[in-house]
């Protein structure tokens, strides 16, 4: 046990408190555009951190988060939509019975989204964990596509290609950052338990892990189902953030985005996933200025859409060359490190003064 455990706990609680004060101020004084980016950041932290649990911590390279997010989004959206709105949107074929009359509060719909997605993840796990490595990636990628195509063609449940609209904009910074906090807390606690240790063992050498008595399948399932649970709730929040969903939202590009985040952050590092989620989400918006026409002294650069993607790709290439383990590698944030640095700084200042 860390000798500074108690101090670190207090520091964490203080930091979280400060964070929420900042969120309160942000929500009050920033424009809706800035708050929207803030919401996206919180949401993508949840998605990236939970995705990292299966891909990074347990080392099972899988490509299914778009399926999980889709299931969560549809579950929660169908539960919060009013019967009147459903009747209005389903113009090709009416929605099937129990769904046509159900309406639940937001929080229940989110829990349902998490549970339904976790059940789906659990069942899917039996099928996909029969294979490993590249095959696992391909099978899970297939599942992602299957969910999207099913959503496109089950007219009476998902409204097919027309999608769902007019979802109440329930999602705000408290939901997105609150869920991010819970996810980070759960994942960082889990990796420190014996389950987490076993997951890491499976990552480094599955055969060796099994040889010392670790049930690899069970630990993969635990990571996968937990990941599905949070991705599902994240999906519900996403749906109520952009207030409309349709199958096109849940393509492979969503997975790909998350994959970039966890690779840039460092596979297996929760801290890295958080930093990269913010960097990619906020950076993507920040870099929009490079797509506007620019005048540098007398040189006029015309607007080039897609420029920020070029910069992102460049950063990725540089990363591959100079920092192949991502921003954090497998390291994590620790208060000890911060306090040490602070002490060092203090020492330096005192000596100088």
């Amino acid at each position, binding site marked *: 046990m860390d000798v500074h455990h108690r101090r670190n706990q207090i520091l964490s609680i203080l930091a979280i408190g400060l964070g929420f004060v900042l969120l309160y101020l942000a929500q009050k004084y920033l424009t*809706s555009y800035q708050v929207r980016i803030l919401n996206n950041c919180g949401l993508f932290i949840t998605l990236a951190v939970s995705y990292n649990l299966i891909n990074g911590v347990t080392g099972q390279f899988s490509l299914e988060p778009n399926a999980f997010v889709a299931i969560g989004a549809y579950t929660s959206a169908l539960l919060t939509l009013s019967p009147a709105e459903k009747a209005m949107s389903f113009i090709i074929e009416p929605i099937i019975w129990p769904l046509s009359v159900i309406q639940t509060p937001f929080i229940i719909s989110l829990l349902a989204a998490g549970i339904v997605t976790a059940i789906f993840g659990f069942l899917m796990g039996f099928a996909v964990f029969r294979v490993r490595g590249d095959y696992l990636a391909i099978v899970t990628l297939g599942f992602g596509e299957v969910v999207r195509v099913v959503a496109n063609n089950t007219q009476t449940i998902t409204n097919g*290609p027309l*999608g769902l609209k007019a979802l109440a904009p329930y999602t705000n910074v408290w939901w997105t950052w609150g869920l991010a906090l819970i996810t980070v807390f759960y994942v960082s606690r889990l990796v420190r338990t014996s389950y987490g240790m076993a997951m890491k063992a499976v990552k480094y050498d599955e055969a060796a892990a099994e040889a010392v008595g670790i049930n690899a399948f069970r630990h993969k399932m635990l990571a996968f189902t937990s990941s599905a649970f949070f991705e599902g709730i994240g999906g519900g929040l996403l749906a109520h953030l952009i207030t409309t969903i349709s199958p096109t939202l849940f393509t492979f*590009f969503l997975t790909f985005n998350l994959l970039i985040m966890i690779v840039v952050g460092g596979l297996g590092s929760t801290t890295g996933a958080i930093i990269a989620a913010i960097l990619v989400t906020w950076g993507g918006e920040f870099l929009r200025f490079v797509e506007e026409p620019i005048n540098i002294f007398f040189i006029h650069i015309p607007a080039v*859409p897609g420029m920020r993607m070029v910069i992102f790709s460049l950063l990725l290439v540089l990363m591959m060359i100079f920092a192949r383990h991502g921003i954090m590698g497998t390291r994590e944030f620790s208060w000890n490190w911060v306090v040490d640095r602070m002490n060092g700084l203090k020492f330096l200042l005192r000596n100088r003064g």
Partner: protein
Amino acid sequence: MKRILMSLLALSLIFTFAIPSAAVAEESFKVGAYLPMTGPVAAYGQMEWAGVQAANKIQPTVLGKNVELFLVDTKSDKIEAANAVDRLIKKNKVHAIIGEAISGNTLAGGPIADKAQIPMVSPTATNPLVTQDKKYVFRVCFIDPFQGEAAASYAYDTMGAKKAAILVDIAQDYCVGLANFFAKSFIKKGGEIVATAYCQTMDQDFTAQLSAIMAAKPDVIYMPNYYTEVALSCRQAAELGLNVPVFSADGAQAEELISIGGKAVEGVIFIGHFAKEAAASELAKTYIETYEKETGKEASAFDALGADAYFILLDAVERAKSVEGPKIRAALASTKNFPAVSGNINIGEDGNAIKDAVLLHVKDGKFRYLATFKQ
């Protein structure tokens, strides 16, 4: 390593202090466009943007103010589309918005514009839900149920088809939607859907589906798919000896249909938003001339509709004599018989364009105007 970092830092500093060239004229009328300039449907966004720019060349001022255009890329993505609209409104402080090219993204952007009371005109969002319950969202294209119904009536009434088969790309929301609307209208008219076969984008082999369709002996095959799939399935139908007229949709209107399909797509009929030969208004002629001079490409449906979104917006501003959202909105909603590039446009109560569709077919390796379908 250090030198690289230093030069990167220097570069980023230059970018940070570079001044965006948006000429800061207080008096300009600001129009924001949020379009998919990159990503899976980038082609649509780029064509529409070219159309908007050509339209801006033709009519660069309104109410004596310069029209200033802002473009924000949506990467063909819903989350980005919502960000983009919020950015245009809050950061660029635009008076009106053009976009998005596809329905899903317009559904994400619409509520934000609606809440901020900024009028939005979409060139090509055809999903009927886009404008439903939205006061500030308009469009200049016809909607999918109308296209499905038009196709069904033409097939049933004019072509005399009683039995139809459908080959639909289930991976595309647009195709599934149209197929459903067509089937609904065709059955309502008294027709029968004798076979429905499914394919997916990027499929190469359609022989199994076509054989099933052949066995059902339809009078017409409805293929509301994109040009590649239509072209390939027509080629294979010809090889199988399936000699039934093929009816397609606006997604088929691309030169690639003919270059891939060759002789096999000869005679394919489809409903489109715009046919060059049928474009009668003065504005249309000026537009086609300007567009083709500016870009060196032939004017097509997507760029024409992009231009129409721009023209109809400016027309509303002129009639409203104001750049305030609610006033432009009222003027837009009362648009009557506006002679746009793609035909006369009326705006209905719900913000939808009421306009004619054109029927085109492939003849001698060219798209030819066939008929006009009145709404």
